């Protein structure tokens, strides 16, 4: 089995899209891209809009399927290549190892905010009461009042939904965290809380890859910057 001494290692990753519904147009997003992130380190992806940052982040979560290359993550005692792993293996990695905080919460009808945040905490060995207490404290830190905890977030504002999503991502002790603009629609106080949460995650040894449009946030959390290569012109 491959050994891996870092949190996540990407080797020779390429991703293109072929749009069959639009005359088979081919979009090469990136080619032969390599990077690695150590435990306790935060890598910020940078590059202009359209340079493929989100596509890269989604590929790292195995939400997009790369054309070539490897995405090696340390999972338990082993190493999983997410670019070729079977769906069950990917789901196992997502359950235990790999967290993703997107800009938007995908709301499931009728599931209350507190449950969304507490979901899966059993994986980290928490009993139900502990899980709820932990979820409540995170929601409180992100200024979501208890009056909202029992409600499904469907009717919440965009900023509130995003904070539920952040609480959900940071509640778990994921060894690897992927952050897609976690502070995009937050006010200054909540931005500061997210910076704290990212720093705490690094301190406990999480490897973090993030997209941060807010330069202040990026400077506060990133150890290194990965600049997306400029795109090759399609032939």
């Amino acid at each position, binding site marked *: 089995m491959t050994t891996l001494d870092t949190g996540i290692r990407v080797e020779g990753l390429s991703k293109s899209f072929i749009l069959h*519904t639009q005359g088979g147009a081919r979009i090469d997003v990136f080619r032969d891209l390599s990077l690695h992130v150590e435990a306790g380190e935060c890598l910020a992806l940078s590059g202009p809009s359209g340079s493929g940052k989100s596509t890269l982040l*989604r590929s790292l979560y195995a939400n997009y399927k790369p054309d070539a290359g490897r995405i090696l993550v340390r999972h338990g005692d082993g190493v999983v290549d997410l670019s070729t792993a079977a769906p069950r293996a990917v789901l196992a990695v997502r359950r235990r190892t790999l967290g993703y905080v997107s800009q938007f919460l995908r709301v499931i009808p*009728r*599931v209350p905010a507190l449950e969304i945040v507490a979901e899966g905490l059993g994986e980290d060995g928490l009993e139900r009461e502990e899980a709820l207490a932990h979820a409540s404290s995170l929601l409180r830190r992100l200024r979501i009042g208890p009056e909202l905890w029992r409600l499904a977030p469907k009717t919440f504002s965009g900023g509130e939904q995003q904070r539920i999503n952040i609480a959900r991502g940071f509640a778990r002790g994921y060894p690897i965290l992927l952050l897609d603009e976690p502070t995009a629609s937050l006010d200054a106080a909540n931005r500061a809380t997210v910076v704290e949460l990212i720093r705490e995650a690094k301190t406990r040894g999480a490897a973090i890859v993030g997209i941060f449009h807010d330069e202040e946030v990026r400077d506060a959390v990133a150890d290194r910057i990965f600049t997306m290569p400029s795109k090759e012109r399609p032939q």
Partner: protein
Amino acid sequence: MQCAACPAPEHPELFPENDPPLLSVRGLCKYFGSHPGCLDVAFDLWPGEVLGIVGESGSGKTTLLRCLAGRLAPTSGSVRYRSEQFGALDLLSCPEPLLRRLHRTEWGLVRQNPRDGLRLAVSAGANIGERLMSLGWRNYAEIRAQALAWLERVEIDAARVDDLPLTFSGGMQQRLQIARNLVTSPRLMFMDEPTGGLDVSVQARLLDLLRSLARELGLAVVIVTHDLSVARILAHRLMVMRRGRVVEAGLTDQVLDDPHHPYTQLLVSSILEV
């Protein structure tokens, strides 16, 4: 068995892992005369996994489901099921009484129209109790207690236990059909468009119920739906069918967010965003 539509006799193991799958399907074909209903379908399903089968009407989804559930005899292929009571079984050569027993115990089938899956002439409680009675339960009080517990579980007022299903709303009938199936703690559920005929608000409630039941009971589920948002919420994995064949399969969010096959791209791009 081998048929002309299947190019290779063996499919690569989809999940090369140690624990054996609950259901293992290889080279499954069903012809209606010369018309192919489903062709060369292969997959494995593990306990606790929800597999969604999507595609438009006529794509072979329901034919496949009926073959899997033993309601329709496939033309060729193999369907292996690991039974709790009877060990590893090849369903295509399985004696009919054994199949019937599996249907009453380890399997459940939820049909799109709850009236097809319920007995309309008897009360809600009797609908739930039927499977138990067929397994030899005779104590009325125990059966009634089970019926009440399952009504509560599927969020139907216990006061309705003696009412006929026809006095229920469509959403309640569907929940009753689910309770009727779950009472024997099945390990494998087949669902054919379970939210199909329901209002959107009723759908959401049923989806949430199915999702939590599947998780809490560790059910393996094969669910046929043409509704991709239902598939996204319920299914871990998807198979996209077109003209009887599986054209794309994989992790649900990967298939929906990064579809590769032209037909999947067309399906996904046809969804109206809400």
